[in-house]
């Protein structure tokens, strides 16, 4: 068990009984270890997500085993599987209903780019309707790849400033997708 990467304490000024660090770092650290996913699983990748939740890969290690099916309570929207054009408005609505801060991970070829389904009925990548933070390639990605993508999200969360969500860039990004 010794080789597990336990979170390192955020860099700060360490002294006897004195430990200071910027709030952003601590909050980012906390958030990154408590990302509750909303599994928006529509097809094959959802089955691999089950494997990720299962005992072999144990998503719980990252503090994310509580899937929140209610978008209000979720921090991370994991879009897994093909999103057809019929589904796109639903996906968007779920994203809009999520409480800030929220992150999106597109798992698998279908969600990221449409994959082999280059057809009239399939959305060619969910980034057409909602902003995506991390893409995970693979069809479906192995649990290792999903965890890898999740770790990338954790990195993102750790380094995000508390105020990013109020920044004009972020608002512009959302406006680009016509959200709020």
């Amino acid at each position, binding site marked *: 068990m010794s*080789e*597990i*990467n336990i979170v390192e304490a955020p860099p700060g000024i360490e002294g006897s009984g004195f430990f200071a660090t910027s709030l952003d770092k601590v909050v980012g650290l906390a958030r990154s270890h408590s990302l509750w996913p909303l599994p928006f699983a529509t097809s094959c990748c959802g089955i691999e997500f089950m494997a990720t939740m299962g*005992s*072999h*890969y*144990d998503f719980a*290690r990252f503090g994310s085993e509580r899937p929140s099916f209610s978008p209000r309570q979720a921090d991370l929207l994991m879009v897994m599987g093909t999103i057809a054009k019929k589904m796109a408005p639903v996906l968007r609505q779920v994203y809009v209903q999520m409480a800030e801060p929220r992150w999106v*991970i597109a798992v698998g*070829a279908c969600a*990221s*780019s*449409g*994959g*082999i389904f*280059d057809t009239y009925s399939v959305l060619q*990548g969910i*980034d057409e309707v909602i902003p*995506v*933070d*991390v*893409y*995970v*390639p*693979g*069809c479906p*990605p*192995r*649990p*290792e*790849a999903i*965890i*890898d*993508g999740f*770790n*990338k999200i954790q990195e*993102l969360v750790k380094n995000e400033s508390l105020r990013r969500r109020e920044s004009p860039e972020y608002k512009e990004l959302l406006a680009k997708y016509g959200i709020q």
Partner: protein
Amino acid sequence: MESLSNRKKVLEQKPMNFWERMYLPAIFKGMAITFRHMFKPKETIFYPEVEREFSENWRGMHSLKRDEEGRERCTACGLCALSCPAEAITMVAAERKKGEEALYREEKYAATYEINMLRCIFCGLCEEACPKEAIYLDGPIVPADYLRKDFIYGKDKLVEKPLTELIKQ
């Protein structure tokens, strides 16, 4: 209905006996089972630190192979692109010039060779289609990334490192 196959095995629903009606014995039995699992060795693989051993047939990231002399094997025949159900492969062929014999094995080679890893479904058909044994899906898992454009893997990421560099490492 009469039997269609003569191999019928009828599973009757047994009515519950007294103990089963009491709820508790079954619950305690179940709890005993779960409790036993507490002391079983854990199945979990600590992924980012420990990796499970993959089978040698496993299909991961593509790599464009070199032959024994370190020359690229690909001849840009386009069969892999043709066989790709996701249409994820593109390439531009070029004629080998004089003096490049040490670089490319055949007279034609792929000047650019791009795979869109987001489109790719890792089905292995390109590997099978290649007549030159130039492409294999024997790499690690393709890492996740932040931007869509970063998933176009060109020759810089796909081609195997030359033997000399491998030896250096």
